[in-house]
């Protein structure tokens, strides 16, 4: 099966100059934990995830301790998030792997598993975002 048959044709996305608080608002309203980032032409340029935003808001020594249980409360994280709120998505987005409309399911599943991705954007010949494939889309197809 090809990506075009598997994908959700949902183009919910942000642009590089979208502010972080707007991206968080969109994630909340649309119920998405990952948003593709597209340019003025609608071409995929990156991705921004809930996970990346949380990590950006954590204290730098988190990488060493791997826990926030030593914090007395969430005030420090909240302060950091408020600083981030009016910065653009481009400051926090990362480069993203994508698949083409005609890529096969095996290739897509391999990428999702190997790269530990929750979802992967689908692009057309010109690089326009045309949909996304989530892990659950493949799982539910396979279980039918």
């Amino acid at each position, binding site marked *: 099966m090809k990506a075009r048959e598997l994908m959700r044709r949902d183009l*919910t996305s942000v*642009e590089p100059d979208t502010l972080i608080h707007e991206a968080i608002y969109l994630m909340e309203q649309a119920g998405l934990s990952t948003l593709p980032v597209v340019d003025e*032409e609608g071409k995929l340029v990156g991705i921004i995830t809930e996970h990346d935003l949380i990590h950006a808001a954590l204290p730098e020594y988190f990488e060493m301790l791997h826990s926030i249980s030593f914090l007395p409360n969430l005030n420090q994280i909240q302060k950091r998030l408020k600083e981030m709120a009016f910065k653009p998505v481009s400051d926090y987005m990362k480069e993203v792997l994508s698949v083409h409309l005609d890529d096969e399911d095996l290739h897509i599943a391999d990428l999702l598993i190997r790269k530990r991705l929750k979802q992967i954007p689908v692009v057309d010949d010109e690089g326009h975002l045309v949909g996304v494939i989530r892990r659950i889309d493949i799982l539910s197809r396979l279980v039918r």
Partner: protein
Amino acid sequence: MILTVTLNPTLDKFYWVDHLPLSLERVEEEILIRARKSVSSAGGKGINVSVFLACMGVETVAMGFLAGHTGQIILRDLLERGVTANFVWIEGENRTNITILEKGKEYHPVKIHEEGPRIPTHAQELFLKKYRRMLKRAEYVVLAGAIPPGIPETIYKDLAREAKAAGVKVVVHAGRRPLWEAVKTGPFFVKPDVREELVVGDMPVRTEEEIVAAGKKAVEYGCQACLISHHITGDILITPEGIWEYEAEVPLTKFKNLVGADDALVGGVLYRLTKGDDLLEAVKFGMAAALASAEVEPKLCLAPAVIEHEMRTVEVRRKEDR
């Protein structure tokens, strides 16, 4: 690609009942109506056009505003039907429109339409940004349906101007002032919604003569085609080349669900235009799609063979040369 704009999407809820009591026998009574069947689906004029087109295999993108739990249901339904969705999310809740169809009187439904959420200015700006981006990839844009609170009635005029500047053919499927303001930009195809008021612009459209006069006015503004319903199974097409009557001899009792029939018509016209048909033939197919939709319980008839068969019932007569 065909882009559709539905600024006020809805979750359409249909209830089929055996009997619809319209008055109480005793004042202390309450009315309890048990539905024989109920169905929900994503709705709104533009969305219906997109659903029709996606089912016919035409690439289509639906745009507008989604909100809340109802918005999630609308989105899920659209994605399942193969429509590409590119909506702006806002706070609140999308509207729900209720249609009650009584057995034997399905041609006379009872409808309750909600107003829809207020659209904040910031969300309108986001929508415009997305709209301009999508215009670059569109062949046609369909501006359709009611305007939600917070958006000016001149919105379709502005969106039509942007589309024309981008070289995209504009179809307006709406009513009252939003329609007429857009007509002044000279869109490609106009299907006025005259369900609430038999008026197009400030002109009444109760008789054939009045319909033709309103259509001619639209053509004067630069419209390539204006299709106005004369009665439930009859439309008049006014173009710069001439005027045609489309008529189908179908008894009212054959209709099972009229909701969305007009949208199937617009979808049918666009489907055939993208296949290379001329306008007259495309409108004939559109009318057949509308009839086929009205004759089945689901909101839209999505079976091409049924629509093709229905074309035999549609007669086209040239009414007047220009």
